């Protein structure tokens, strides 16, 4: 009787600990093979849009949020590809306003432990080209932005949930700015245009 009681308690514990300690692998999608998104937009007026991508739900996999809100003139192109293994995202755009336009992007890679965020507010004009690539082994964030307004950039690289915070970066740039930035973690061949 005692043995059965012990087994009843121990077995779920063993299963739970095995689940918690198993290495992070690919997200397991059952139905969707991949998602592709090609979007071109020209607008003179008011815009409020947001796109959210993730390879896994909860605190796992890779995430990306991008959005634009406000009034002005916007010409932007987005390309996204997401599958179980990771995601690629590019936003290229020209934004003009009388200071009432905001654009922001945040990308996280829980498998590698990296995050980057960029936001642009009070945009008079902004020409941006942001390229994000992240999978379970590598994160590459490339930002090229030129404009007049307020730009805020931030990034963090951490060696997994229990590891050291290797890099922390935060910057606020107000006025006329031209920013070229590339942050990478992991190993991959990449050839950025900067």
């Amino acid at each position, binding site marked *: 009787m005692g043995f059965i009681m012990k087994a009843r308690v121990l077995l779920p514990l063993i299963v739970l600990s095995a689940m918690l300690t198993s290495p992070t692998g690919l997200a397991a999608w059952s139905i969707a093979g991949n998602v592709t998104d090609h979007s071109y937009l020209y607008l003179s007026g008011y815009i409020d849009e947001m796109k959210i991508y993730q390879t896994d739900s909860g605190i796992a996999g890779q995430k990306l949020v991008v959005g634009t809100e406000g009034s002005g003139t916007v010409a932007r192109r987005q390309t996204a590809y997401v599958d179980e293994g990771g995601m690629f995202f590019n936003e290229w755009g020209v934004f003009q306003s009388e200071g009432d336009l905001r654009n922001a992007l945040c990308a996280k890679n829980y498998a590698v432990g990296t995050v980057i965020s960029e936001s642009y507010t009070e945009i008079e004009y902004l020409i941006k080209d942001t390229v994000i690539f992240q999978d379970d082994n590598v994160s590459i964030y490339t930002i090229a932005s030129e404009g007049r307004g307020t730009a805020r950039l931030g990034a963090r690289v951490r060696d997994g949930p229990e590891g050291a915070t290797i890099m922390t970066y935060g910057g606020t*740039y107000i006025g006329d700015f031209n920013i070229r930035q590339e942050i990478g973690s992991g190993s991959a061949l990449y050839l950025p245009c900067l």
Partner: protein
Amino acid sequence: MTARVLLLLIVLLVTLSSPGLADWNVSKNVTQRSTIFLRGYMDEIFIYQTEEGLAGSKLVYGSRGSGTATRTVTSYVDEGEISFNVQGEFFYQPYTPQTSENDLLRALRAKNREVGTVVSESYAGGVYLINDPLASQNDVPVYQISSQGRGAARLGTW
């Protein structure tokens, strides 16, 4: 007026290496290359370390102020070393970022002494503010702050 013009030219190259390797589990290395040109106001900071706490190598670089700046940072960090190179030209010119005049103040602070987390937020000089904070302290502390407004917002956690 020439005395108020600050010309600063920096070229800094640092390579820090620790006697023993840090033991990273996930990250293999971190590379960063950043070039900015700015005419206005900037406030930036770069922090690197190979290990937490009083161990390994650490490096902090920051610059703040107004004027015209051109600077390039190139850095590489792995378990064994931090390599950091900054090259820049900074000219001082006065620049005052727009701040709204308003004495609306808001603050929130939540602590969980058991787990050891603190989050605080304060808003000052706001023209408008839409705020929806959420703090759950039952089992796992979750602090979620969603705010939109114009003015100065201060958030912190430690």
